[in-house]
């Protein structure tokens, strides 16, 4: 067993020495995710929109409330997002800065009071991090309701506004997007890097030479995994550094938890690259296969587009993609300070994928 691991370590060391001498490869390996981070990070950090996008939840059956909802649909100051039907989704959307506020009409809103006129208080939720938009909307709504109050001619204004801040405090849209960007980096590093380099080494005959020694396919795969784990970690650390310095990234969770989770995620994603690169005889085969495998994850695992915007049947299917639990887990650690124990389901799914993909990688590996 000791010999077995020694062989893996010796080969991983050789890979490491070579990698850091290839300045071109170094440059592209680490710079690409950072460029990507700058582009997408900038898109999500500037939120200088002046129109108010809100989600509206009507829990009241009163005709007044229904009338209010209908009128608000045609209102120009409020843009009601009609696609949102679930309060938690709306909260997350607000966290990401995609809507400014959530307006909730409670059950008793608009129900006639003792004097026979509609009464009640609507709730305006806003984000603690950006209270201006929430306060503005609350002020606008108060103005509207005051007008109705006056027309009702009651001494005590029966309609009013309650303001509430949501729990997504101190988090910016970037903090939500960041885990998706990390996930995309792991996907591209994990699949495309290895899918290129392994067939290239078959072509030169370097693997064939190794095969003359007592090394096994599994040892070669684990040595590569170990080497790329290092590269993946460096890349993630660089991205987090840029996120902290440039995008005011807020980390609510535990760094050690994130590090552990990221390592497990890297091991899984590089498993795909190892399986593809190990199987392919040349770069043409690996390029085609890596595209087929990475594309669904690139678009359906929540890298660029949050999964909760998808139809629910698609959410159910994409939940099982290997990258989905990685991105979900990272986001829950970052924005909800979840622990590894909380992330049991995600870790379980990742674990199953790791077993499957490394089993396949060792089985389909070809030396030439």
């Amino acid at each position, binding site marked *: 067993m000791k*010999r077995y691991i*020694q*062989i893996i*370590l*010796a*080969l991983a*060391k*050789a890979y490491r*020495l*070579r990698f850091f*001498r*290839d300045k071109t490869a170094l440059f592209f390996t680490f710079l690409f995710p950072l460029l990507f981070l700058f582009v997408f990070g900038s898109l999500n950090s500037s939120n200088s929109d002046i129109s108010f996008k809100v989600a509206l939840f009507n829990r009241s059956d009163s005709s007044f409330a229904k009338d209010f909802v209908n009128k608000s649909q045609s209102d120009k100051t409020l843009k009601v997002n009609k696609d949102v039907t679930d309060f938690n989704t709306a909260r997350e959307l607000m966290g990401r800065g995609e809507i400014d506020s959530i307006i909730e009409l409670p059950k008793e809103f608009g129900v006639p009071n003792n004097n026979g006129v509609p009464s009640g208080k609507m709730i305006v939720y806003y984000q603690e991090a950006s209270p201006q938009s929430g306060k503005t909307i609350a002020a606008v709504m108060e103005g509207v309701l005051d007008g109705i109050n006056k027309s009702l001619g009651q001494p005590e204004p029966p309609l009013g506004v309650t303001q509430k801040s949501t729990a997504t405090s101190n988090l910016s849209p970037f903090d939500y997007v960041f885990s998706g960007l990390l996930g995309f980096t792991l996907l591209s590093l994990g699949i495309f890097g290895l899918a290129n380099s392994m067939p290239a*080494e078959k072509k*030169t*005959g*370097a693997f*064939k*030479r*190794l*095969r*003359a*020694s*007592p*090394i096994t396919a599994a040892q070669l795969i684990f040595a590569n995994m170990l080497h790329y784990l290092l590269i993946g970690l460096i890349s993630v650390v660089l991205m987090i550094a840029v996120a902290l310095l440039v995008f005011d990234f807020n980390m609510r969770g535990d760094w050690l938890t994130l590090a552990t989770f990221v390592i497990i995620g890297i091991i899984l994603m590089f498993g795909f690259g190892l399986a593809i690169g190990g199987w392919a005889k040349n770069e043409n085969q690996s390029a085609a296969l890596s595209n087929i495998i990475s594309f669904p994850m690139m678009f359906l695992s929540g890298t660029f587009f949050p999964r909760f915007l998808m139809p629910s049947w698609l959410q159910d299917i994409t939940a099982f993609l290997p990258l989905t639990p990685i991105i979900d887990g990272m986001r829950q650690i970052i924005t909800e300070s979840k622990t590894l124990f909380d992330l049991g389901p995600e870790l379980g799914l990742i674990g199953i994928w790791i077993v499957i993909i490394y089993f396949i990688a060792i089985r389909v590996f070809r030396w030439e």
Partner: protein
Amino acid sequence: MGNIITVQNLTKRYGDKTTVKGISFEVREGEVFGILGPNGAGKTTTLEMIEALRPIDDGEVTLDGLDVQKDAAKVKNIIGIQLQSTAFFDKLNLREQLRMFDSLYGETTDPDSLLAEVQLTDKAKSYVENLSGGQRQRFSIAAALINKPRVLFLDEPTTGLDPQARRNLWDLIRDIKKKGITVVLTTHYMDEAELLCDRIAIMDGGRIITINTPANLVKELIGRGFTKTQQVEQANLEDVFIDLTGKAIRD
């Protein structure tokens, strides 16, 4: 001297094409055994089956008492292989390469003494991609010796080398033989086979046509009444070349 390699009825098929057709031969311990033959004769395939690099379709190979198919891992520990398309990792200097291979075998060979043996001491910090053809072949042999093998396989070791580098490599192979290591090599050069090999197998079309010592093979041919139409010169053009340019290696 006993046989270190026994090959019996060795066969390799690719689809409906049989490239090695049930060949049998023995290699004696300590000898230099040459396999000669035109391109496509099946030399490399035969070697790679003996080296446990290629599955054997039919037949049996025993190496130092080990069944090559069943004990592939053990066999790899006692043989050294120099492949025709020698490929080493790029961006890794010679000392680092040897250190890596050394770890793969778990042995404790000193990379520097091995480099000295193949006259590459001053290249210890060079990358393989920056070596000349002759240096590369010598390094390839050094890497094959890292596990102190009992049998060394050399597949066309001198192909593409200049006359000086070839002579240098012959000296190296003779030194290796002196250490008691059995050498199995393939070559296209008859002068090389005649100088280095104790016995020769000539292959063609996947079969072994004959096996004997170089001297006996020549005697057999003359015994069959063969005569050359031209008078043999006392020297050939290669002798002229070496005389004019010297034996010192250039790389």
